[in-house]
């Protein structure tokens, strides 16, 4: 009789008993883990999922905020360049949008772009160059790039720290060299006439695009300049969009003379 009852019980409750046994085993295992304390590996595996799950609401924000703020501050204290490089392509457009909202730009006449250089920041090596007419050969482009960089170093170091936030423009008479620095490269445009305000903005955009497209080339720069040449049409487009022909061509001699005048006059002011 007893055997028959057991058999009946097994037929009716067998599946449930198995499930209960499994649950008991899991509870035992969890209890053992809790007794052994939290395991770093298990928590590490769970943490990304937990944060992702809670990312749609703000419940984690108060807890994370102080840590994120402290981490950012520490990173900036250790090496400000890391954060600056990371936000450079984003912060530029944001600043320009703010400025554009404050000012309205009108067209300006009699402006001409003769050369645009993109120069590697550490070595002063020209990476890509555009010229409206064939004034400069490769050697002259290299020398002009070097002189521009040397002049910037000279002026910046000659002023006391904090007095000058980077040399931006060199100007003699009607000719202006507009300079915009970036984290790894500098863009410089040799122009004549009054530059439209948007031209400087376009230089900044071009430099940001250049950094974005050539990030890995710039990081491992070894002097090879071929990788950057596909960017030259973009500089040509920049000139076509803004340059209004003025008739007078720039000569190599004039460009060198301009740079030397800048050096001599600059030195006289500083010394």
């Amino acid at each position, binding site marked *: 009789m007893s055997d028959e009852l057991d058999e009946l019980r097994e037929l009716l409750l067998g599946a449930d008993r198995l499930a209960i046994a499994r649950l008991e085993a899991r509870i035992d295992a969890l209890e053992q883990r809790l007794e052994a304390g939290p395991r770093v590996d298990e928590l590490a595996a769970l943490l990304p999922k937990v944060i992702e799950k809670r990312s749609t609401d703000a419940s984690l924000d108060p807890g994370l905020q102080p840590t994120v703020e402290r981490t950012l501050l520490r990173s900036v204290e250790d090496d400000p360049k890391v954060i600056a490089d990371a936000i450079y392509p984003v912060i530029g457009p944001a600043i320009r949008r703010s400025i554009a909202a404050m000012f309205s730009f009108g067209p300006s006449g009699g402006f001409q772009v003769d050369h645009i250089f993109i120069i*590697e*920041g*550490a*070595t*002063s*090596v*020209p990476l890509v160059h555009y010229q409206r007419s064939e004034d400069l050969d*490769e*050697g002259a482009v*290299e*020398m002009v790039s*070097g*002189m521009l960089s*040397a*002049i910037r*170093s*000279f002026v910046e*170091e000659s002023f006391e720290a904090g007095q000058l936030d980077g040399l931006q423009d060199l100007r003699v008479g009607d000719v202006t060299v507009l300079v915009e620095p970036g984290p790894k490269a500098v863009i410089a445009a040799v122009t004549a006439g009054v530059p439209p305000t948007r031209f400087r903005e376009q230089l900044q955009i071009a430099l940001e695009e250049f950094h974005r497209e050539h990030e890995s080339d710039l990081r491992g720069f*070894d*002097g*090879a*300049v*071929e990788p950057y040449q596909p960017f030259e049409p973009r500089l040509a487009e920049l000139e076509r969009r803004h340059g209004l022909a003025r008739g007078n061509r720039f000569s190599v001699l004039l460009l*060198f*003379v301009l*740079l*030397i005048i800048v*050096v*001599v006059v600059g*030195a006289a002011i500083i010394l």
Partner: protein
Amino acid sequence: MIRKKICLVGAPGVGKTSLVRRFVERRFEADYHSTIGVRIDRRGLEIDGQDVSLIIWDIHGEDESLSVRSSYLAGMAGCFVVIDASRPETIEIATTLRERALAVAAVPMVAVVNKTDLVDEAEVALSSARLAPLADNVMATSCLEDTGVDDAFEFLARATIG
């Protein structure tokens, strides 16, 4: 095309500018060197089938009143430390400048014993021996007799491209 910046440093009057003048094809002859303390020239070379453009920063001679700006040395791929064979005392400044250059960048360095036409072979050998520990190579040059100049630049160019 590979573009490499190289620098020349040394005491005043050791002949750095003469070395560059001997080596480059053409120069823009305006004297801005003394104003900002550097002048820049270039020359193209072919090294093992590779076009190499040397952008040469001829940095003013350092003395008690004028020191070499470290920013001019930044980004260089190679460096000449030049002495005057007829003035062994220029080795002392060369040693100081070599240390400063290495602090900016650990790059191939060539010590140049210049103006060898002014001294005998024994004096050149003595200076070379004193410079040997300071550089990857020591080379003797004379701009007057046009000896060793191209070899020195070609050696450094080759060293910069590894």
